[in-house]
């Protein structure tokens, strides 16, 4: 057989970025431990989904925010090599600082033209303490941020769901409320598998000048999902 024409082949990259709240309030009721555990548990499931989608190369990164924000895992790590380093808590909830770092990662220069829609998962238990509005506005000036699948998980009852919904967008997915460790594990598993799977699809979406928004059709969470809450009242955040 004649040699195939063209250069090196590659699967399409898919960026998966965690945005994790590490403010001091995440220490109460073991929320940060629950988040660390949930993300760690999700890794084999993500690897399984990635294995079943050999035409998408999933890369994972993580941003942490408290008093300021920084990369927790800066290197774009292939999912098969990904390990989770525990987050620690301190300070306040500077969500805006995290969104500015995210913006830098989603610029047209940073992203490949052939990338699949990125998946961004924001996990928070509180109220932003900086100017998140301006940072969110600046973030949404990036075309890849507009097209990203944006998921927000509110941990506990003190989380400001209205602000988290602003991150997801009016047309976006509703904020997920995790009031206990088990629910958090389930939601993290859902975004790491079902959402990741949906974002890995090469299906196109008709979108001229008329439409703006995400291109990924996210399946609805199973109806029996809520039935997992068989825990005692003192475990509720």
């Amino acid at each position: 057989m004649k040699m195939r024409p063209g250069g090196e082949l590659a699967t399409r990259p898919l960026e998966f970025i965690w945005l994790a709240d590490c403010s001091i309030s995440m220490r109460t009721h073991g929320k940060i431990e629950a988040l660390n555990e949930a993300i760690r548990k999700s890794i084999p499931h993500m690897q399984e989904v990635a294995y079943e989608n050999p035409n998408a190369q999933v890369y994972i990164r993580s941003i942490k925010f408290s008093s300021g924000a920084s990369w927790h895992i800066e290197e774009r790590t292939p999912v098969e090599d990904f390990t989770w380093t525990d987050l620690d808590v301190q300070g306040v909830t500077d969500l805006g600082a995290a969104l500015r770092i995210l913006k830098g990662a989603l610029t047209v220069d940073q992203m490949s033209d052939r990338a699949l829609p990125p998946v961004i998962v924001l996990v928070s238990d509180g109220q932003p303490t900086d100017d998140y509005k301006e940072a969110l506005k600046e973030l949404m000036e990036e075309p890849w941020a507009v097209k990203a699948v944006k998921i927000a998980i509110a941990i506990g009852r003190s989380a400001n769901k209205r602000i988290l919904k602003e991150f997801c967008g009016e047309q976006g997915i509703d904020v997920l409320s995790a009031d206990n460790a088990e629910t958090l594990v389930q939601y993290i598993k859902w975004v790491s598998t079902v959402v990741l799977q949906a974002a890995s699809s090469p299906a196109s979406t008709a979108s001229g000048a008329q439409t703006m928004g995400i291109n990924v059709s996210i399946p609805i969470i199973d109806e029996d999902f809520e039935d997992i809450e068989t825990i005692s009242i003192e475990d509720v955040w």
Partner: protein
Amino acid sequence: MLIKNSQWINTYETVTGKTHIKLDTPNQDAILSEAIDEECLVSIVADGHGSKKCTRSHLGAEFAVQAALETVKSVRDDLIKNDTLNTKVIGKYLTRRIVKAWRQKVDEHLEKESLELVDLDLSSKEIRSIKKNPYVSYGSTLLMVIFIREFIICYQLGDGDILFVSKAKNVTKPIKRDTRHIANDTSSLCLHKPEKEFKIKVFRDLKSVLQMIILSTDGYSNSFSSESGFLKVGSDIFDMIKDDGFEVIDQHLKEWIEETSNHGSGDDTSVSIITRLEDQSIEEVTV
């Protein structure tokens, strides 16, 4: 599939991507070429969107290539006027007629087989959008090149690529990539007034410069790690034709695009290669 007239020779193939084989869904691409006469050849590719909302986009792509070919045939005699291109015909007049013909085919199909939205795993918002615009279920892109006498007319609606390969083996894109098309976004026949979204480029008297044109759906370019790797397709095929003749391309094209899709995007992939007939004995031009 070999097509030729007095000026051009063309081969084309399409393969179903691994993703659709796994999900047991049909190839969402359609591809068609025809030598209408000795002076006019048309090559068309279309890519159905394939998302959950677009359950009939494989048919939409098929309708798109048929509608485009039928439209070009119907205006064939009007394309040239006073020995030059009739600009009144090649622009919106033609694209409007393609859109009209495509919608007619969709309407006829919908009449025969109405959409049963309740059977689909769609959100209420998605169902509302399909009810408002049923063409969404058939959404497709469209790329077409008309070769008529000394003219080459390129049309592009949505993603996909047209490559020009010069006699000096330079590979370029006559229609630049639409920067709005990221993260699987694309313009489409199913949108409102799609005729306005067509990119059209016309070329004349390229005989001494242009050797070959390649049309492909985005499953092909998305399979290469870099743009230069994708453009290399043009120069590699140029060399192969020079060394072994066009029949080699015709024999191996399907295997090549299958391998490319399998190790790349996993998407349905369609490629049409059109080269000047005398290129079976290509002579390389020194730049």
